[in-house]
């Protein structure tokens, strides 16, 4: 027995010493790392909130931090995503959604009456705000605005609204039906690629069928988060002609007019356009473009790329 014990003890002791040494060395490594200064810009409040929300979801935690009680851990509505810097307070959100709902009903009725009515992107934003805000902000707006609930859509008709109000809404948001033909044609190509090809959604790369009516536009417009402002109408912007090409990792990407808003805290460490060739040439090398944007940063965005050009993040779609 004692012989066996004496055989076991050195092994156990050796193992213990080895573990102790490893622990000490691991601790030394952490101390070394902790002492290394490095460039690390602090995150903005919005970035902290986003990171915290994602971590909470991954961790399966649902409670809210008492320390970070200013954090809104609800998923942002489409209106908040489109304008992250301007987050309306609750009663404003309700007022916005109620006004948007009213505008939607008026416009929908006007569309049926006039036929061929087209909505611009600003109203599309309002509609998305309505649909998503009413879905996500759930009982609050309804509880505090019973008059909206009581007036069911069926009771709100064109007759119940003043003609001026309807005309004002229609006039301010609708394209001018008397506009010259080329402007109408441009507005009718909403979400279509300037090259005439079918538009591509930023997320999945699937083609979106051409819109034929207001209802179709409501259902199938590009995702809200990819549309910034009312000026960003694909096909009508001066940039995004569709002939801008960029080669990244063996894949060619073509510029579009879609303006994105990726959450990029700093462009310092992003990949950049390394070289350029003439506009009529095809880029062949990695990081090469056929337009004058050497040094412009880019990053992967959904199915394509986001490239920072002239202060805007523009979506580049993969060329099949």
């Amino acid at each position, binding site marked *: 027995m004692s012989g066996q014990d004496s055989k076991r003890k050195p092994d156990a002791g050796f193992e213990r010493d080895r*573990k102790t*040494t*490893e*622990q000490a*060395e*691991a*601790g*030394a*490594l*952490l*101390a*070394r*790392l*902790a*002492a*290394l*200064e*490095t*460039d*690390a*810009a*602090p*995150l903005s409040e919005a*970035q*902290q909130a*986003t*990171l*915290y929300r*994602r*971590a*909470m*979801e*991954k*961790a399966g*935690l649902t*409670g*809210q*931090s*008492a*320390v*970070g009680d200013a*954090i809104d851990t609800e998923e942002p509505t489409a209106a908040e995503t489109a304008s992250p810097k301007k987050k309306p307070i609750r009663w404003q959100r309700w007022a916005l959604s109620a006004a948007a709902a009213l505008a939607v009903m008026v416009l929908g009725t006007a569309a049926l009456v006039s036929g061929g009515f087209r909505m611009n992107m600003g109203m599309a934003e309002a509609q998305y705000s309505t649909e998503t805000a009413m879905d996500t902000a759930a009982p609050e707006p309804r509880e505090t605005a019973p008059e909206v609930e009581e007036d069911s859509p069926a009771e709100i008709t064109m007759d119940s609204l003043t003609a001026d109000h309807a005309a004002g809404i229609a006039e301010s948001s609708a394209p001018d039906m008397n506009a010259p033909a080329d402007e109408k044609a441009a507005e009718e190509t909403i979400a279509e690629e300037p090259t005439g090809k079918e538009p591509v959604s930023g997320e999945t790369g699937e083609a979106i069928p051409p819109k034929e009516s207001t209802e179709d536009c409501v259902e199938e417009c590009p995702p809200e988060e990819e549309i910034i402002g009312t000026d960003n109408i694909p096909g009508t912007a001066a940039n995004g002609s569709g002939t801008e090409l960029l080669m990244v*990792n*063996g894949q060619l990407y073509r510029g579009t007019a879609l303006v994105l808003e*990726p*959450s*990029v*805290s*700093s462009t310092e*460490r*992003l*990949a950049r356009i390394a070289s350029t060739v003439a506009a009529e040439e095809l880029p062949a090398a990695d990081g090469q473009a056929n337009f004058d944007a050497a040094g412009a940063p*880019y*990053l*992967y*965005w*959904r199915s394509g790329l*986001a490239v920072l050009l002239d202060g805007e993040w523009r979506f580049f779609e993969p060329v099949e």
Partner: protein
Amino acid sequence: MDDRELLEALRTRPEDGLWLLTQQYGGLIDAVVRRILPGDAEDAEECAADVLVRIWRAAEKLELQEGTLRGYVIWCARNTAIDRYRRLKRQRQRTADGGDELLETFAAPVTTEASVESESTMAQVERSIRAMPPPDDEIFARRFLLCETVPQIAARLGMNIKAVESRLQRGKKKLREQLVREGVTPE
């Protein structure tokens, strides 16, 4: 807030602890992750959130000396990002430069049940770096652990870029030989 209080918060009040961790080390985690995943902001953000969760899960078992939580955060961020980089590389067939193999060699294995990092891997890394003379040890630590670029390292140490590159080159060769001898990497 000191490391001990932060770890205590992570253990006893996870929601508060995660928020405090985000506030205190979110920028550092983001910086390290983006160095390894520079091309895709979405991936980097997802990865940073993974790092926070991983640290939270490990907090229960962590026994750190005071002042070393920062080092643990860097180590965790680095390995989580490398793991994601590997997956993305397989998906996108990225080409890796010569430095990546060593970068990945030093990566501790990532498990779905996040726990305390492998001490043997950390000990091995520390031994390798400690065996180098200064300033090579700091150059390697910054390149392979903090994932700083050569120009960044040169600027911080007040050295010529070429000098940093040549030290890295020589050191990589010696390190590779050592790792082969120890059986960490195949020949």
